[in-house]
């Protein structure tokens, strides 16, 4: 079943972490205690020009091996244990690194960071890069989301945007690394549903150099988003068309049918089949998207300068009982909140 929730202040003012915990906790019944997590944007203002790597290690040796790799190729400005309550049994080691990439790779630094993440995740047994963006971080694990939030002391962070997930795993086991959000660079994805085209999508994205380590459908969505938008420079609208394209007869009725047709044909292997509702977070905002036949729920609320997206309306009203506007996006219709647009308009 799963629950997802996201909140963004379009004027960039910070939102305390307990707000997003309150929202996701209101949908407690949608998850089963096998996964919960949060992504916060704007949480590291003191290090905002550095990549914040959140890592989990199953043992000290994995940590040591990872640090050897890091020290060889980047400059670590600061590293520390991610503050948590007492670690439950089976929990990994949580560590974060604020890193600067060397000057000689700065022209293609994001590619460099992606390669580094793939290298650690694929080659170092027991190490996993949970998030790797600037001024953002992902906190996730095995438990109900509200418990995971307390565990990571999410209430001590403030962010201009949060996303959250409560997990009810159906096709993979519940694990600390396999919980949502999934992240790469400053992308994060929370997802309710199941991508039945996983095999096709995986084989396709692997040919572009992405390594799939968790075996879950959300991981593949994250990498598709990175490729379509960062590498191939598609707009959010176009990327949504690729992931959840209109049906062929519907395309014939569109004004921009030639472009939509091309996107559907060129990126046929990136199309997501099956039920899903996702929230994509990134440095400039948030995008909500449902599968085109809307087999999973999504409600959007607006109040003052804040926008929320969630699996259920109660997750919006838990934060703002008298929310001014409730919207129900159609299947395949992206809800795009772009901070740059808000700033310029």
């Amino acid at each position, binding site marked *: 079943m799963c629950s997802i929730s996201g909140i963004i202040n379009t004027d960039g003012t910070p939102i305390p972490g307990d707000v997003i915990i309150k929202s996701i906790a209101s949908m407690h019944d949608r998850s089963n205690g096998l996964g919960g997590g949060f992504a916060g944007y704007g949480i590291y203002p003191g290090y905002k020009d550095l990549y914040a790597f959140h890592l989990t290690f199953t043992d000290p040796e994995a940590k040591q091996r990872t640090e050897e790799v890091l020290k060889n190729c980047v400059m670590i400005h600061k590293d520390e244990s991610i503050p948590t309550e007492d670690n439950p049994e089976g929990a990994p080691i949580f560590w974060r690194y604020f890193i600067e990439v060397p000057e000689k790779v700065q022209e293609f630094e994001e590619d460099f960071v992606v390669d580094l993440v793939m290298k650690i995740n694929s080659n170092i047994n027991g190490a996993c890069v949970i998030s790797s963006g600037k001024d953002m971080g992902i906190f996730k694990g095995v438990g109900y989301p509200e418990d995971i939030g307390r565990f990571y002391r999410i209430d001590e962070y403030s962010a201009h945007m949060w996303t959250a997930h409560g997990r009810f795993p159906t096709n993979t086991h519940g694990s600390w690394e396999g919980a949502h959000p999934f992240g790469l660079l400053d992308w994060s994805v929370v997802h309710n549903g199941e991508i039945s085209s996983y095999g096709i999508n995986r084989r396709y994205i692997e040919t572009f150099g992405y390594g799939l380590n968790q075996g879950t459908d959300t991981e593949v969505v994250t990498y598709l988003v990175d490729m379509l938008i960062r590498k191939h420079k598609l707009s959010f609208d176009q990327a949504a068309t690729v992931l959840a394209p209109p049906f062929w007869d519907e395309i014939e009725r569109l004004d921009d049918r030639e472009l939509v047709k091309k996107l559907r044909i060129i990126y046929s292997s990136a199309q997501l089949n099956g039920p899903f509702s996702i929230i994509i977070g990134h440095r400039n905002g948030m995008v909500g998207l449902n599968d085109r036949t809307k087999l999973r*729920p999504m409600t959007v609320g607006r109040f003052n300068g804040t926008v929320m997206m969630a699996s259920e309306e109660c*997750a919006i009203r838990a934060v703002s009982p008298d929310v001014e506007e409730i919207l129900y996006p159609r299947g395949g219709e992206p809800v795009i909140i772009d901070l740059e647009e808000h700033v310029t308009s």
Partner: protein
Amino acid sequence: MIIDAGSMDSRSLNAAIKGLKHNGSIELNNVNGQRYICVGVSGRKVEINGTPGNDLAAFSSDVDINVNGNAQDGVANTLRSGRIVIHGSVGDVLGYSMQGGNVFVRDNVGYRAGIHMKEYLDNKPVIVIGGNAGDFMGEYMAGGTILLLNLDGNHIGNFIGTGIHAGSIFIRGDFNPYQLGKGVVMVEPDASDLEKLEVYVREFCSRFNLDPDRVMEQGFTKLMPQSSRPYGKLYS
């Protein structure tokens, strides 16, 4: 009897409702997302203030439920009889497998309203929607009646009545034939149809303080199944 649901989860709220000794009406305040409210309950009058969670009134019979606000997904799931009035909008799969009773929604409904609703003898479910509807309204419909009033004249969903094999859908105002699912036929409502739907329009309007004559001014189109076994030859 007033219950403050503010600090209650789904289980304790439903236990409180079922544990009531008297049969009088109940008012639920500060409801937000609690699921299955009134599940399996029979013969209750309930006023809900707030946003009831998924599967409101599932499997219940002879209930009289009034929601002051929106409701979420799965309202009236397999409802047996009674009446549910929503002063707002609802999410997806309204009236899933509904077997009887009436649901009145003032504003909009999400995807798959009336999916697989059915009728048997005197049990004839009816859904009346004041606003518009998402795609797949009346999907696999097996009986009963859906009235889509579309009072704001918005674009309504596609794939209407996909897989319908019994029952009827009435849509007020215009839409495009391509919006219908396969196997759905459009006909002009006859006198007995109009008589029947006017009764529901009048009840809808009295609940939401609207003028029924103005609603009836605009014409309706009736949608019916082409065949009672649309998938009969799928595998033959």
